[in-house]
């Protein structure tokens, strides 16, 4: 059977720069219009243009994970993405986790297990755990270690970070059970 030759897809090319260009970032549910140089990284945009300094710049070359944020729910190194690549897309950062002053269960678990020392890699670690638990609410020990293997911690809080991730999974499961029970009671 003869097949129709596939039509070449039309490429959409957007030329940006030189100079600053406008983009929209949806960060923690809030839309921001930002003017950025095309070469500016997502990390610099978050930190310098939006004042969200939770994600840290520790290597600026994708080798440590301290700048981990979620892009459309997937964990990325914010230093390895250009801000213009994220135009119109949804981002979640450490600043979006605590709601109305209440810590997220992952944050609570990190504090209780003492899963941090200097705390510099912590926002990245927590976001990596968030990405894991969003997609896999009941991870095994091995899955936790795999998911966190791209996040370095020089203080060596690893054992407690792993414990905190597993504990957070329990806390979240319990919280969800409570919500379920609550919604069925109502």
């Amino acid at each position, binding site marked *: 059977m003869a097949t129709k030759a596939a039509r070449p897809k039309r490429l959409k090319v957007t030329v940006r720069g030189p100079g600053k260009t406008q983009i929209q970032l949806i960060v923690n549910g809030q839309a921001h219009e930002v003017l950025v140089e095309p070469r500016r990284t997502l990390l610099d945009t978050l930190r*310098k243009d939006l004042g969200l300094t939770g994600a840290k710049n*520790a290597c600026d070359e994708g080798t440590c994970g301290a700048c981990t944020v979620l892009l459309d729910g997937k964990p990325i190194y914010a230093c390895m993405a250009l801000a213009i690549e994220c135009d119109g897309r949804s981002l979640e950062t450490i600043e979006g986790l605590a709601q109305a002053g209440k810590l997220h269960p992952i944050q609570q678990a990190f504090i209780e297990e003492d899963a941090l*020392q200097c*705390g510099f890699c912590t926002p990245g670690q927590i976001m990596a755990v968030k990405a894991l638990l969003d997609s896999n609410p009941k991870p095994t020990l091995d899955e936790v270690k795999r998911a966190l293997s791209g996040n370095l911690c*020089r*203080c*060596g809080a690893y*054992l407690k970070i792993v414990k905190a991730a597993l504990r957070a999974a329990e806390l979240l499961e319990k919280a969800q059970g409570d919500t379920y029970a609550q919604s069925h009671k109502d």
Partner: protein
Amino acid sequence: MPKVIKTKTEFEGRTLEEYVVVEGEGLEPWEPHAPLKFVGKGISRIDGPERATGKALYTCDVQLPGMLYGKILRSPHPHAKIKKIDTHRAEKLPGVRAVLSSHNTPKISFRRQTFLFDEIVRYVGDEVACVIADSEEIAQDALELIEVEYEPLPFVLDPEEALQPDAPKVHSWGNLLNGEPEVYERGDLNRGWAEAHVIVEGTFRTQCALHNCMEPHGSVALWEGDTLTVWDSTQHIFGVREGLARLLGLPLHKVRVIKKYMGGGFGSKNNLGKYTVIAALGAKVTGRPVKIILDRHEENLAAGNRPSSVQHLKIGAKHDGTLTALELKALVAAGAYCLWPPSLGGPARELYLCPNVKTAQYTVFTNTGPLSAFRAPGYVEGTFALESLMDELAKKLALDPLELRLKNYAEFDQTTGRPYSTKGLRECYERGAKLFGWPKRPESSGRFRRGFGMASQIWSGNGMPPAYALVKINPDGSATVITGTQDIGTGTKTVLAQIAAEELGFPMEKISVEIGDTQTGLYAPLSAGSMTVASVGPAVRMAAHDARQQLLEVAAQVLEVPRESLTISDGRLKSPALKEPITVQEVLKNLENFMIIGRGAREPNPQDVTVNTFGAQFAEVTVDPETGAVKVERIVALHDSGRVINPLTLSSQVEGGIIQGLGYALYEQRVMDRNTGIVVNGNLEHYKIPTVLDVPEILCDMIDRPDLRANNLGAKGVGEPPIIPTAAAIANAVADALGVRIFELPITRDRVLKALGKE
């Protein structure tokens, strides 16, 4: 009345003599079994929420209105004379506000070995110029427009070569620090060798290791009139203040150094850095705040390192294992500049009973990045050599390694002749061996070989004066601890809050702790040498005690009850003369805004005993003889650092020290191109620090016996002790597994295969 006394203090393997001003009456330490409410409890960090929400403001997060960014141009040559710097093109780039170099800055002496911008550069990475611009991107662009003409000079990278008479000179006065080795000697070495039945010796080599704190070094400088404020990622805000004031000719009260949160230091942030002075000058010239944060590559060139070493060690012993002589000749590569050389001979001088000892350390300048302190400087390297050779001796004498160590247990400090205030090393050995299952090693099965190893730890960790604190009691019954120390990630704030709550009789949530500001804080020593808690903690306790006494005095008058009848617990005053307990707030409410201010100062260290910390670690490894891969299966660590104030944060420090020690044992090494002096792995991709996948099972426990002579807490430091024996214990386990010893760190696969004759 203040009293001035002269005391001796040990800091990182050397004894310092200093004058100390003592005020008021000393406090007796808490009794060993005193029922304490907060001290000794695993309380989670009081600043955990800030750190876990991204709200904690680190130096690199500081953003000020109108702030500019600085980027430093660094030497591409290991040794060169700068003949010409042309900054015109860089200055013309839009957005560039200033280019600083030797042309337009004062000639500021640094460490008496170089200048802020020197005409000679002595390593790849040495500072040449700095661009101050509107953005980091522009500053980076401008660096490429600076034209520098270098006259390359002969250079030397290897410390052994640097000691040769015809070696290129790093400094005009020669390559040996102070022109001579640092020598220690006791007894008669020749007699020691004559008395020995067996002699073992070896040449041990350790690598250059890089700190790679997650937060890079950096500063933000702001001038307001003639007052300079600097946010700095430092382990010593008062040291930075002193240095800035001295170098810039400012009075101390016009320099304010702030550091609220820090992303790790491990010794590399002990001292004032050039970037801080450059930021201050840049801010002065431009009239705008200036931020300079090193990038990861600069971090690995210019921010310090644990220097490489070559150690020739020789031990003599009798048939029964009694040591008769010990001799160490150590060579340390200082790099281009050196402020405080590590003391490699410490373990050889102190750890084992031996009447005849000589250590000689040659600290040698090379055209490489300058050394700095790195978590237990010298002792990590020295312990690797000593404990490796002790195992070789045990093997030769057919003794169990632990038995050999117990045979030579030192009951007193042989360098001073003084007894130890406390020494729980024997218990560390005993409990550690039991927990670990020493010495019954499991049989190797299949192609993998299993091995057991252990090593011991000695370190000061005694803390020292001066350190001061205030405790103020607010009208609502809350209290604020004020001091000038810094929390470098160790949990200092939490521990200080526990101490204050304990002494005041207040609940933890009523205590806040303010640190990290030279203008509002009081002097505290650098957060290094495992001495923060043992230095600042006693001052906080004394300040809380003073505040409590004042509160009792006031309450007795307000409540019209005898002062002696009053006690405080849970933030309430109790007395048989009162119907029911009354809160502090109730007592103070009639006194309007009256505020109680308690003062405290660290007392001098005892002069008739040596205050040290001890420990032992046991390691199990499996080695794959086909690939050379070493896997650490588990580590058991027992340490004695006196009273434990917070077992939760303490265990974090111990685990962290062991994990860093594991990286040092197996993975980490700076690699330098020997033809160009360029660091080829100055990043986190190729410089391998442990990841979560590399971490073994770790079991740590403490002796937790208060040292009643150490200070009024009975507590000693724990930051450095856990990294000291790890590499040695792992190396001994690998030697046990292989049946042959590897004399060089890190124990990489190629070295394992070479040791097995499989090159």
